[in-house]
């Protein structure tokens, strides 16, 4: 009995001593998995200290050819919130991972699933769904992360997702969102100024990644090296493009790190056009580790190319 009393006293003393310590421990942070670094950056901006973010891609991948890895499956199985661009951009790896991960919290339709393209008005929505049109996306051009206006839209969708899974953090998320939108407003003004003279300037792209950027800034996409989305260039197609570029005085080719840049170089040699390699996600270069940084780099590189004197082919 004496032993029991002593143990009970010890247990009570332990509780009194350690409970406040346990209560003072910072709350577990939300585990967020984003498909691309752009979304991870926005989650960090809005979620702040309450989130721990990981991404599937690192920044240079062709998003239509990402290889799922064991760490992706594990991260997806443990995530509280999953954020994707949507519009079938991540169709090469997300459906399989979602099915394998068996995480009820982040299934499509669950509170922890965020598709940032929800509510976004897509361009290039095919009038007819046929593979004759190439590797088309039924809901339209999925590269909305390259639209200078998309930062606000994506941040808002992420904010809503964070509030759904962590309602207690709403005030923090709201304050973070407002601060970020302020930063965005400054950046948007900067981009507006840089792209003021772009309207009507003609460019050629490798893949239709920069459609949103062109639509917003007034750049005219004369053609693409890919015959159709996802269909690699053929000699006939490239020959036609060379003629068109020469006839229209097009001097700029926009491409991404994953593109078949040997084809791009050949086209540049034949036409004297400048090749502008642009990031298609942030994180692929030390110059752009944030989404705003990436859009800065995109605008700067295009502006430099458009204002530079024409090369002699």
């Amino acid at each position, binding site marked *: 009995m004496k032993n029991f009393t002593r143990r009970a006293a010890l247990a009570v003393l332990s509780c009194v001593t350690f409970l406040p310590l346990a209560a003072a421990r910072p709350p577990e942070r939300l585990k967020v998995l984003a498909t691309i670094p752009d979304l991870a950056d926005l989650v960090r901006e809005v979620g702040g200290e309450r989130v721990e973010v990981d991404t599937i891609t690192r920044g240079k*991948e*062709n998003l239509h050819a990402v*290889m799922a890895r064991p760490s992706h499956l594990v991260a997806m199985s443990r995530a509280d919130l999953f954020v994707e661009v949507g519009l079938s951009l991540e169709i090469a790896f997300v459906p399989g991972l979602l*099915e394998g991960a068996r995480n009820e919290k982040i299934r499509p339709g669950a509170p922890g699933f965020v598709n940032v393209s929800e509510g976004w008005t897509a361009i290039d929505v095919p009038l007819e769904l046929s593979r004759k049109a190439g590797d088309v996306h039924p809901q339209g051009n999925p590269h909305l992360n390259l639209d200078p206006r998309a930062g606000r839209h994506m941040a808002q969708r992420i904010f809503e997702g964070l509030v759904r899974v962590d309602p207690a953090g709403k005030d923090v998320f709201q304050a973070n969102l407002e601060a970020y939108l302020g930063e965005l407003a400054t950046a948007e003004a900067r981009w507006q100024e840089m792209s003021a003279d772009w309207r009507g300037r003609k460019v050629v792209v490798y893949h239709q990644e920069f459609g949103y950027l062109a639509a917003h800034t007034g750049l005219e996409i004369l053609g693409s090296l890919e015959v159709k989305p996802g269909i690699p260039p053929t000699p006939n197609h490239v020959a036609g493009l060379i003629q068109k570029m020469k006839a229209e005085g097009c001097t700029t080719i926009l491409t991404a*790190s994953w593109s078949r840049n040997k084809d791009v170089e050949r086209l540049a040699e034949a036409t004297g056009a400048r090749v502008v390699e642009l990031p298609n996600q942030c994180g692929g270069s030390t110059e752009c580790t944030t989404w705003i940084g990436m859009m800065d780099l995109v605008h700067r590189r295009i502006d430099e190319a458009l204002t530079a004197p024409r090369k002699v082919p």
Partner: protein
Amino acid sequence: MQRFLSVSLFLSLSAPLVAAQGPAFQTPGTPVFPMKPAESGDSGQADRFASVFNPAFSFLVDTVADYVDFDQNSDDSGFNAEMRTLEMAAQAWMDPDAWAYFVGATEGEEVAIEEAAIHYTGLGNSTIRAGRFFIDFGKQMQIHTHELRTLERPLVLRAYLGEEVKGDGVQWDHWMPVGDEAAVRWSLGVFASLLPEESEFPTAEVVTEVAERKDAGDMNFTARLTGFTDVGESGMFQLGASARAIPDYDVLDEVNTLGESGLDSTVFGVDVTYGWSGETGEERLTLGAEALISTGDNGFSIDDPDTTPGTGDETLTVLDDSVFGYYAFADYAWSRYQSAGAQFSSAELPDAGNSDVSEIELYYTRWLSEFHRLRFVVASTEDDTSDDALRFAVQYTGIVGAHGHGINW
């Protein structure tokens, strides 16, 4: 006016009945799936002719044109062209936890059900799979021939397990994370029969079969344990072990009316795969190998002293030596559209002469888009029991629709 009101009232009362057409087509004893009129419009399945919940359909055509040069029997050498496979498939979710699919494929001039199974996924990280499906053995037995990196399945798998091994049964598989960068998966399968339909390397002209009704312990089994992990920023490593057991089967020599029963066969395999992907995801290197041991009653020999079948002096001998075989491959893709590789496979055959057979296949694959590809192949076979051969082949495969057989790991 009164007539107009009467007609309006009649139409408004009968509208829900028209919308909920189900009951009118049901007969006593048939399953009843009541549909409330209020829900019928919302669901989209307003009547039994609605097609909004149709599954995803696909078909695939696999064509091969080749020239084979036999070393000794040159009369057998020559050109050929065949539509090797026409495959049709459909798949759909049935509810939030279960989906089903079927794959029908041509076998000669007939269409056979290759796979038809239901996947139940509502048990956390476990999956219950029931129906007919390819066995979970190594990395290459689960997939259809047209999906392979090579023109043919590795020779050792064809020799010890069969060209394609599908079984009617049930499989339970489960995976779990290990740390942040690795996962372990295991599966157990129970099937009615896993004997190959025909052997590419027969040791004698016999027929083998598993009894239709049998004890639980005489069912056919598969088991697989595999783990895979990230290696650095761009690599992946996988190690696996598989087994396929046929505890009780019979053999029959129909010509000489000889037979044996109570035979067994077990094949064990260990596989290793390394995958590397460049920073854009377009450039990839895959290296892999699998070693197999086939044990039990694997071969047969018919001894016929007077060399005239059916005279009664014949004896059937069951060969039970364990045999070993393996394959190894390297595949390099320098873009999403182009890859090349080599695969070598060798196997001891369970015949009386301890014969060996080996095959090397070199290939170049060109995807014309994501949905059709051309493959150019040179393959050389050395066969102690038959004739050596050199084969040149062009394979053209086209996929239409939502084609997929699930994750292979």
